[in-house]
């Protein structure tokens, strides 16, 4: 189920109405059922993967703290995903689950159970590390299989062909489960935090399962930390009208960004980055600028709706965006763009690799590795690897080139220097989006070639579409200017209430006037 469907606009009030009427633990039961229903609306089969991730990380986290449940309990939990698939094949024959899939799920469960039992019988000092490895191994194994197996298989096939050999090609079509990167990273982050002692293991499977599958943020973030979300889920909240006010405001801003800004910009971006589109320099720039606002409006809009939906349940989710296009350097950009992912990579990869504590070359290596993997996280495609590497290169350049470092200095009091730094970073960001949006290297090459052609013959007029783009980003920029001083993109609270009232009414009108474009959220594919 997507946030921008009428189903969600019925689903959310129903969940809210029930949630605030139920006592304590029953609220979690409701949230878990609602979350699984929300996810199952896409594909009921892949709920087994969510269950598998939940069971593995729940058990591993408890075992890291030496609180492992009994053998039978572990076995039963390990077989839960297989049981789910069995139930689906019995009651939902259309789900297409066959014996092979059920056997694979059973084998996965038994494999985990075996690993868990072996580690349980090892020496106590080794166990925490091994349980962590078991969790990471299984979770990344599932993620790797469903997201990257086909990619690596294709790449290996191409390499062998390139070397003049004849590969025996294995054809395997694997569907990418929606949101798998998000919930896998959220769950893994929790286990690592438990291992490090930053967060206690959650003793309740109900609470942990709800944390892992919390519907507002499950499929496209923000990637929550256990220590932030789990205590909120465990706490029995009393309804406060502020939840309603803040939640509705966030949802309104989110819809505005997604439906008015992103979906309208998408029309131009999709045209420019479609194969066969004849491009010149004007259209290349217009297309990538449209995509920059599309992806920002799309993803930050999703986050705002997620945060608003959670807020209506009395739960605060992490801020994921903070004026990213006003960053003065790449480091600041990543502190403002998809914050929950960049801090995840910082805390669980960059810092463990050594961060910037070693030599200059070690720092460069750590940055490069982190950013290449962050790029790969976005999708099984070399173009994302290139995008990650490009941002890694930017981070390195701003670190090693004194002129860039000086220009991008966040503490510089000069306004002109600040404007120049933002403008330069904006150009770098656009170039990055051109890589990100291109389907492959060939298309990226065509886009780059178009920058050398400023003839207008043979292509569509670009002036009126530029006006279209401007009309759709101007209200967003106005919103950002209004909220800039509060360091929160959605903070309209301090405006005088009559102004806010007019702003809300205008936003609603702009949203509804844009309903002709039905597009899915970009980040669902990651």
């Amino acid at each position, binding site marked *: 189920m997507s946030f921008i469907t009428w189903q969600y606009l019925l689903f959310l009030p129903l969940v809210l109405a029930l949630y605030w009427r139920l006592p304590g633990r029953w609220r979690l039961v409701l949230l878990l059922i609602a979350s699984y229903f929300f996810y199952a609306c896409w594909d009921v089969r892949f709920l087994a993967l969510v269950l598998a991730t939940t069971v593995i990380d729940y058990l591993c986290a408890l075992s890291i703290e030496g609180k492992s449940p009994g053998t039978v309990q572990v076995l039963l939990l390990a077989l839960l995903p297989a049981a789910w698939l069995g139930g689906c094949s019995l009651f939902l024959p259309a789900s297409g689950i066959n014996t092979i899939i059920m056997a694979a799920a059973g084998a996965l469960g038994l494999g985990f159970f075996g690993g868990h039992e072996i580690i349980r019988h090892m020496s106590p000092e080794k166990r925490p590390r091994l349980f962590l490895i078991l969790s990471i191994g299984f979770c990344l194994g599932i993620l790797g299989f469903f997201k990257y197996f086909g990619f690596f298989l294709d790449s290996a096939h191409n390499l062998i062909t390139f070397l003049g050999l004849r590969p025996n090609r294995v054809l395997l079509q694997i569907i990418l489960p929606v949101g798998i990167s998000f919930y896998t990273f959220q769950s893994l982050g929790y286990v690592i935090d438990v291992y490090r002692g930053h967060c206690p293991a959650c003793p309740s499977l109900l609470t942990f399962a709800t944390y892992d599958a919390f519907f507002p943020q499950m499929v496209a973030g923000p990637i929550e930390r256990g220590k932030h979300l789990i205590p909120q889920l465990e706490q029995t909240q009393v309804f406060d*009208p502020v939840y309603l006010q803040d939640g509705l405001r966030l949802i309104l801003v989110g819809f505005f960004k997604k439906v008015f800004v992103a979906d309208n910009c998408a029309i*131009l971006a999709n045209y420019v980055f479609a194969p066969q589109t004849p491009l010149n320099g004007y259209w290349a720039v217009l297309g990538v600028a449209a995509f920059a606002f599309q992806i920002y409006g799309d993803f930050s809009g999703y986050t705002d709706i997620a945060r608003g939906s959670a807020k209506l349940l009395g739960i605060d989710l992490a801020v994921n965006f903070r004026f990213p296009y006003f960053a003065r350097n790449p480091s600041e950009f990543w502190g403002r763009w998809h914050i929950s992912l960049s801090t995840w990579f910082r805390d669980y990869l960059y810092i463990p690799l050594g961060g910037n504590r070693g030599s200059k070359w070690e720092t460069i290596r750590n940055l490069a590795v982190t950013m290449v993997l962050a790029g790969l996280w976005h999708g099984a495609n070399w173009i994302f690897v290139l995008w990650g590497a490009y941002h890694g290169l930017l981070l390195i350049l701003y670190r090693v080139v004194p002129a860039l470092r000086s220009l991008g200095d966040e503490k510089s009091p000069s306004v002109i220097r600040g404007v120049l730094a933002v403008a330069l970073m904006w150009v770098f960001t656009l170039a990055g989006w051109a890589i990100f949006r291109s389907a492959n290297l060939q298309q990226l090459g065509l886009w780059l070639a178009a920058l050398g052609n400023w003839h207008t013959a043979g292509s569509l007029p670009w002036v*009126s579409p530029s006006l279209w783009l401007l009309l759709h980003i101007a209200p967003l920029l106005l919103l950002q200017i209004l909220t800039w001083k509060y360091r929160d993109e959605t903070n309209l609270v301090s405006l005088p209430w009559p102004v806010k009232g007019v702003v809300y009414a205008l936003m609603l009108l702009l949203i509804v*006037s844009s309903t*002709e474009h039905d597009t899915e959220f970009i980040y669902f594919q990651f």
Partner: protein
Amino acid sequence: MKMTKWFTPAFLLAVLLLGLGELGARLFFAADISGRFEYGYSPDAGFDERRDGVVKLFRAGGRRFHPQSFQKQRPDGTFRVFVIGDSVPRGPSFKGAYPWLLGKELQQRQVQAESVNMALPGYGARRCQVVLKKALEFQPSLIILHVNDSNKYEDEREYRRSQEFKTWHPRNWPMKVFIFRRLYEAKTEKVFWRLVPEQIRAKFAARDADAQVAASTDPEEVRARVQLARETTAASVALARENQIPILLITQCRVWPDGRGSSYFEDHGLDALGQSLAGEGVYFLSMKEVFAHLPEGRAYFSDSGHLKESGHLLLAKAIVGKIREAHRQLGVTAFKMEAKDGGG
């Protein structure tokens, strides 16, 4: 519990503004918005049937009628003509268009005539038929149907638009609010269609009737639209006959320069259509026949299809000629012939 505790004053103000906008539109512009989103396919839009027995024509529901009025019940002895068609009969101005001039010409011949211009710009056969159905309720003595083939595209596009958001499916609920739908319509027509090239809209917009229809260059689909327009015209004629109302078909022609300083006229096969439909109670007048034989026939046209006021006058006189020919069948008793009509 106070509302302000649940909702902020700003939220309540926003709801109030939108609510007042909606209420105001529905209360004060009720007539203007009737059939607004049926884009010409509403049976009644633009017809205001008053309690005093007067029918007023006004602009509403995608129908830009020239404001006119007539009695719902045709007065005894009045020869009532309704002209239905597109921008050609609608004319450069109300009094410069042939329906008005026809009324004048008939009155000069002492026919107690009233001629009502029900022509609407961009209307093709399908929407003209909807107007015809309504017009038949008001006892016309003669229907003049101006047959043109250039608005089948608009008919199809507006039909598709009229079907959008029509059901009560929850996804259509916001569009049941007039101000939302109106803004959506304005944005679509004034911004979207004008700023985003058709090729892009056709490919990348989820719903865009304009681009969808424009992009359908499939010859089969185009042929089907032409066929539908012709069948609809035939059905309109049949409808008039069923109601025993005489109908005069005026077939449109176009004039083009022939490259040698002269011009040529073409009828796109409409004359043949008119001929085929003519029969008892069905009359036919070809615009090509009216203008093509004149030495400066092209001078009566403001572009390839629209007439200047002089052209409208000439056409009105030609219609008078047709009426004169059939005045007994049409029940026109008093008909004073002018010398320039050729006597008789």
